[in-house]
């Protein structure tokens, strides 16, 4: 069996030897031209003049293109994959993110106004600088919290409001009643900071138009190439059968590389216009500004407890950021992933939430690893933490009193979602033991007596992963079918190519999908190759996002492989003159049960393609495809626990220890699982302590445009992680797997922030907004001390 083994990754050799093939590495026979963009320097402005004449005449310039050209070419608009709907189901106030400014107004810094295509990067940059653009600045607002204030400038005045949509979920009256009768009510303002994925590989696209055959090719840093192909039918009106989208090796994505970005459409357009292949390689500054941003929810929460600390009800009012436009999947956050998980790992009888999505003059927001759930866990867990302190109940004990007991599964939450399986108390007990929790509390008390500030952070939650099923996701707003696809092709020599509609951008599918297929096919893993990321080679795909690939594409591999086995057994049975049910397939051989009669899988494969001696109704060939629509979402769960030390002088936070206990169902490769959790934790820690896509609130200028200002965690900023697991089986797919891609980022912001508050509670600090940077912690302590005097 390969499943369950820490098989070393089959893709690693090429990366380690410097032989990976990312979009920027690809060479073509024709020389590749470079694209450069003119971007708005203003948060909100009318574009009164664009003069490209001088630029067009510069050396090496092949094309200069503006919004007017875009419109004249008959190109189209972006369209939501997960479009905005309000509660009535009607279209809300949608304004799609433009590919290039076409209506004479720019609404956030970085919006593209013009494009240059030139022979080399210097010429492209020179010409972009030579394009003259006049702007008339308009008032702007970049702050989500202020979006609906009466005096806030409107991003899209035609709508008369900055509100995109309102949704309400849960039990309104029951929640109000619960809060009214509660023994204690905790209220906290819990905004989540605007962050961005910052994959180390910048976004990069290359477009090519083969005029002879009337075919188009796009190489893209993307997680879902078939979805990109679908939306080129909208942007450049290219039919799907004419376009090949290739996502080669992709250097991290985290959700951010899921969208049909402006630059992606523009490079292919540039290639069509200039007659040359065109590539754009994002600079880090362009990416920190133009990659979708994430989170940025402004929430006020109230939680009511009974005298024993049992949660009676919780209520939230949230402003959810859209930024200046609707990015393609944004409503999957506000309308699906965010509110659904508000019960976390707790048995909460009444939950109610109101989410208002709003426009601001900032980069569009979209899904980033966790998408809505880090906000959810943060807002609920911050209330629980403060509630525990206010009521004088040990924070872990208070949580333990509220966990969903294992006998209640499947458990329907007050928000309406049903968790299929889980055992939160078991996770908590493992975390308690792993961290030696009681000893930590003793250490905390001892250190505090010495003037040292130590805090213990905790959180416990469920994740909604593995999207679909198709129907459920359609009902939540998806305009694409959330299934996935795999083909298993057995070649006549018995070797196998698996084609999958997922796309690994670090997850290791070449290894894990091969593990699944090899077990089903009873073959050596070395006899399997995987193809992903090419719409001309893979029949269809929905892509890798939302911790879904294993329970959709992985299950399609599983199912297609089983179909291959079934068909090959019929051929083998014919050849061995027995019944298919009498055959075992293992180690590359069919064996007739209870005998020593054997036939190699390779011989059967060969016969399947080349022998006329076959069952009369058995079609030639040995290749099967599965479009797998799961029976349910998956619901991974986890408990996190950490120790922080806050420097009483500088207020800098040191994260000393971090433990996570995960329930991700069946594990394909424990080594890959741990890596997924580690990486997510570091990103969540970054959100808690360092990262912020900051804007100047006055000018709307972007302040985090380089890695000198946008702080992603360094090796020194995170500890080694202590992981454990406790498995319950997912019920929605045959392997029982739940997915593991997002657990770390979902839990870590809440856990770390709770740790900081726990360290500072005795000083009177009740909340510090994320990221909890030294300057903000210092200020919070100053304010708390002043208030106590």
């Amino acid at each position, binding site marked *: 069996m390969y499943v369950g083994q820490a098989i070393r990754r089959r893709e690693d050799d090429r990366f380690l030897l410097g032989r990976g093939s990312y979009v920027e590495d690809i060479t073509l026979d024709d020389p590749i031209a470079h694209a450069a963009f003119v971007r708005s320097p203003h948060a909100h402005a009318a574009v009164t003049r664009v003069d490209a004449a001088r630029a067009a005449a510069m050396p090496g310039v092949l094309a200069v293109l503006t919004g007017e050209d875009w419109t004249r070419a008959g190109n189209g608009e972006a369209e939501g994959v997960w479009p905005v709907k309000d509660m009535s189901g009607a279209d809300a106030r949608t304004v799609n993110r433009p590919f290039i400014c076409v209506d004479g107004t720019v609404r956030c810094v970085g919006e593209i106004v013009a494009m240059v295509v030139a022979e080399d990067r210097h010429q492209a940059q020179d010409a972009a600088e030579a394009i003259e653009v006049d702007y008339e600045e308009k008032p702007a607002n970049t702050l989500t919290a202020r979006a609906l204030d009466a005096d806030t400038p409107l991003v899209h005045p035609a709508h008369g409001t900055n509100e995109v949509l309102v949704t309400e979920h849960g039990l309104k009256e029951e929640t109000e009643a619960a809060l009214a009768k509660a023994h204690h009510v905790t209220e906290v303002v819990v905004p989540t900071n605007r962050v961005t994925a910052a994959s180390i590989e910048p976004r990069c696209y290359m477009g090519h138009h083969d005029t002879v055959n009337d075919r188009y090719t796009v190489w893209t840093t993307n997680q879902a190439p078939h979805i990109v192909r679908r939306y080129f039918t909208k942007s450049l009106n290219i039919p799907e059968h004419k376009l090949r989208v290739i996502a080669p090796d992709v250097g991290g994505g985290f959700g951010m590389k899921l969208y049909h970005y402006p630059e992606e459409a523009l490079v292919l357009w540039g290639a069509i216009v200039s007659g040359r292949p065109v590539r754009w390689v994002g600079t880090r500054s362009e990416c920190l500004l133009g990659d979708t941003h994430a989170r940025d929810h402004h929430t006020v929460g109230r939680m009511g407890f009974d005298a024993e600390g049992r949660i009676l009800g919780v209520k939230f009012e949230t402003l959810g950021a859209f930024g200046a436009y609707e990015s393609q999947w944004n409503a999957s956050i506000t309308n699906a992933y965010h509110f659904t998980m508000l019960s976390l790992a707790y048995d909460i009888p009444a939950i109610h939430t109101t989410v208002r999505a709003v426009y601001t003059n900032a980069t569009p927001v979209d899904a980033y690893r966790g998408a809505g759930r880090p906000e959810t866990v943060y807002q609920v867990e911050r209330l629980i933490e403060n509630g525990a302190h206010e009521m004088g109940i040990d924070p872990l004990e208070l949580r333990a009193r509220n966990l969903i007991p294992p006998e209640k599964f499947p458990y329907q939450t007050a928000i309406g979602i049903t968790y299929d399986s889980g055992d939160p108390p078991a996770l908590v007990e493992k975390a308690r033991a792993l961290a030696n929790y009681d000893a930590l509390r003793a250490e905390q008390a001892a250190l505090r007596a010495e003037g040292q500030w130590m805090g213990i952070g905790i959180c416990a939650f469920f994740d909604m992963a593995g999207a679909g099923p198709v129907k459920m996701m359609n009902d939540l707003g998806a305009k694409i079918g959330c299934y996935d696809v795999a083909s298993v092709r057995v070649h006549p020599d018995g070797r196998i190519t698996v084609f999958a509609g997922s796309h690994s951008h670090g997850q290791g599918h070449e290894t894990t999908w091969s593990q699944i297929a090899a077990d089903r096919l009873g073959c050596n893993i070395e006899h399997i190759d995987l193809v992903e990321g090419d719409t001309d080679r893979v029949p269809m795909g929905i892509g890798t996002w939302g911790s879904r690939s294993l329970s959709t594409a992985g299950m399609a591999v599983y199912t297609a492989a089983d179909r291959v086995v079934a068909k090959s057994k019929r051929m083998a049975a014919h050849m061995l003159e027995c019944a298919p049910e009498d055959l075992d397939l293992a180690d590359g051989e069919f064996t007739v049960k209870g005998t020593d009669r054997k036939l190699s899988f390779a011989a059967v494969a060969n016969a399947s393609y080349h022998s006329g001696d076959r069952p009369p109704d058995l079609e030639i060939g040995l290749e099967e495809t599965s479009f797998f629509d799961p029976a349910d979402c998956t619901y991974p769960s986890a408990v996190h626990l950490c120790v922080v030390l806050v420097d009483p002088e500088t207020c800098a936070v040191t994260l000393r220890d971090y433990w996570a206990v995960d329930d991700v169902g069946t594990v394909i490769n424990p080594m890959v699982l741990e890596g997924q959790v580690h990486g997510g934790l570091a990103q969540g820690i970054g959100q808690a302590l360092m990262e912020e896509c900051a804007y100047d609130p006055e000018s709307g200028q972007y302040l985090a445009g380089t890695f000198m200002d946008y*702080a*992603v965690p360094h090796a020194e900023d995170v500890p080694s992680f202590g992981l454990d697991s406790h498995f319950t089986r997912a019920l929605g797919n045959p392997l029982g797997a739940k997915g593991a891609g997002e657990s770390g980022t979902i839990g870590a912001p809440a856990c770390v922030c709770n740790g900081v508050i726990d360290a500072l509670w005795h000083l009177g600090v009740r909340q510090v907004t994320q990221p909890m940077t030294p*300057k903000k912690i210092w200020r919070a302590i100053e304010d708390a001390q002043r208030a106590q005097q």
Partner: protein
Amino acid sequence: MYPFTYHRPDSLDEARARLAASEDGRPLAGGMSLMPTMRFRLASCADLVDLNAIEELAGIERRNGQIRIGAMTRHAAVAASPEVGEAIPALAALAASIGDVQVRNRGTIGGSICFADPAADYPAGVLGLGATVNTDRRAVAADDFFTGLYETALEDGELVTSVDFPIPERAGWAKLGNQASRFAVVAVMVSLAGGAARVAVTGARTHVFRAAEMEAALAANFAAEALDGIAMPSEGLNEDLHADRDYRAHLVGVMAKRAVRDALAR
């Protein structure tokens, strides 16, 4: 990057001549700040005069009771230098705290002090240790060298050749790095020599400065407690994403005390 003509002189004289002959010449030392600035097209020049082949500009020697560090000496060399480590260990610690391994392998003391980034470390070392900056024309006291935001006393075409550090009785270094760039939010070099104390602060204003009140207190009593009650006014301090004025003012006090403790522990 804007276009430029590249020159690679192998002597100081040739470098001087190249710069003198250019309308818009710029010397290139380690390039750790200049290269990114040129990539962003925030800096340009007609002639880029690369100093990296000029062997006479690199090296560390102890003479006349001072440590002389050649302008093109890399941070890694200063950090690892037995002469520096023995005579002024706080200066070695400062060098070891700059940037990262790759930057320290390439960045130079001359480049750092000439670029005069408001958050650079070396200016605090030069000022806090009362060093003398030697150029191809003159010797400039540290107190006169740093004049403003990215500004120094250097004239057009003037090249720093070395820095002379007097050996103090005690010196200490403390730094709180920015979470993103790791440049100093505030860093302080303190020293004590001949009964006089120096406290040089970087990261807090347009350019490195001395904290006079702290110096007087430390001259009287070179101990961290001597700084108790001395508040740094927040007025005029830098304000950015990573620290506002009040927090920076607070940090100046914290870092100064830590630098004194560091000095006493060496």
